[in-house]
């Protein structure tokens, strides 16, 4: 049956993600000596809870409700499940029994095991409850969330990243503007371009034109050329400039995209 399949798959997914999130979070306290998997905001927030189990738990709980609403509405867990709920609840579970954070929250083995259990519980709960939600609620969620999300991705995010690039310095502003415009044209969204612009601009600011920044520039150009080609941007451009497409270009497209 449908719900049984979801249940079993949720157990597996929850166990994998929870285990890895737990280890990754604990390793963050030992970075950069140890390569970790997590996020700076997770590190900051977990430090802010100062080893108090109740703080860790209630912080996770606030985001858990948000994630629940989002899962019910759109089937999306939000990134908070791995960034906030699992690490903080795993920390809370360990701290109830032992208050010493060096032996608990900073220990990848213990955090991994606690994360595993919490991952299974959280993922299964979210998936099972949301697949049993009435149709009218899902319709409402789609009508409300999809337009909001579209505005966010297509207008708010590009503008915010763009302004951040400009504020971050002359070089990242320039690269961000060029790559952002190109990305908007080629990829349909300017954000990736602006992000790459910040990355390269700040990289050059701090390191200069060294081998690593030159490799980055080449990789970025390659990324634009390839995604432009695969999305047929070259042919579209020729068409809108009222030029004819050369045969060899059509053949090349026919080779990689036989439709």
């Amino acid at each position: 049956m449908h719900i049984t399949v979801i249940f079993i798959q949720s157990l597996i997914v929850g166990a994998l993600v929870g285990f890895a999130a737990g280890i990754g979070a604990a390793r963050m306290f030992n970075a950069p000596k140890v390569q970790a998997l997590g996020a700076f905001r997770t590190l900051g927030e977990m430090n802010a809870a100062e080893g108090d189990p109740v703080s860790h738990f209630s912080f996770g709980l606030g985001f858990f409700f948000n994630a629940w609403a989002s899962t019910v509405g759109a089937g999306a867990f939000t990134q908070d499940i791995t960034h906030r709920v699992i690490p903080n609840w795993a920390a809370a579970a360990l701290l109830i029994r032992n208050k010493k954070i060096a032996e608990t929250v900073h220990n990848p083995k213990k955090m991994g095991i606690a994360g595993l259990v919490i991952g299974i519980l959280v993922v299964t709960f979210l998936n099972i409850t949301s697949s049993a939600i009435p149709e009218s609620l899902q319709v409402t969620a789609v009508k409300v969330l999809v337009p909001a999300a579209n505005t966010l991705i297509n207008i708010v995010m590009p503008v915010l990243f763009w302004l951040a690039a400009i504020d971050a310095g002359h070089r990242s502003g320039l690269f961000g503007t060029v790559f952002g415009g190109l990305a908007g044209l080629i990829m349909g969204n300017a954000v990736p371009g602006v992000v790459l612009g910040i990355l390269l601009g700040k990289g050059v600011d701090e390191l200069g034109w060294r081998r690593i920044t030159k490799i980055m520039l080449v990789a970025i150009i390659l990324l634009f050329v390839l995604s432009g080609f695969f999305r047929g941007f070259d042919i579209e451009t020729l068409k809108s400039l009222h030029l004819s497409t050369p045969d060899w270009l059509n053949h090349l497209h026919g080779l990689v995209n036989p439709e």
Partner: protein
Amino acid sequence: MQNDLKDLEHAKSFWFADWAFPIIVGLMSAGVFAGTSMYYNYGVGAFNEVAIVAMLKAGMSGGSYGAAAAFGASFLFARILEGSLVGILDLGGSILTGVGIGIPAILLSVGIKLPMESFPIALLTGLVLGVIIGGVIYLVRKFTIGQSSSTFGADVMMGAGNQTGRFLGPLIILSAITASIPIGIGSTIGAAIFYAWKKPLPGGAIIGAMIAGFFFPVGLK
């Protein structure tokens, strides 16, 4: 003595060693990729923000996968570089968005559906992708650590990313207002209650809109 023991632990044990990193990323990727497969098949379980999952949804419901593919892939690229340099691989950009949204979108856009349709293959695909990503970081780290002190504007991007999150609450309420009057009222009240409780606005705005939508349903035009 205590410190010596800890250093030994750092170097040797699975829990601290750099060689274990690809395995940890592999496990995470397997779970996240399989989660996206569940979303593809049953409409639940994607490990990402509504806004980002909506890009994948746009492709699944007949539109273009381009936005999701480009967005996910470029985030993955940027995060791999950054992760190996700063010592923390950003889970959200690399795995949740890159592996969870970008790579599925690329595969689907060229007509490869099997890794999404079959759960075991999704697990395997995710595992392999994660081990590769973790391996690349392990290598980059080996050759660059200590040689570079740049964060490549990670702070700038993180600042902008956090700013973006703040827009979602008001945007949801504005969108609810255009859906119908009761849903708009519900959403406003929900958001206000959440704000009063010092919780993030979007949760309250969504719950309020849905409660109102349950009693006063709207059609999906």
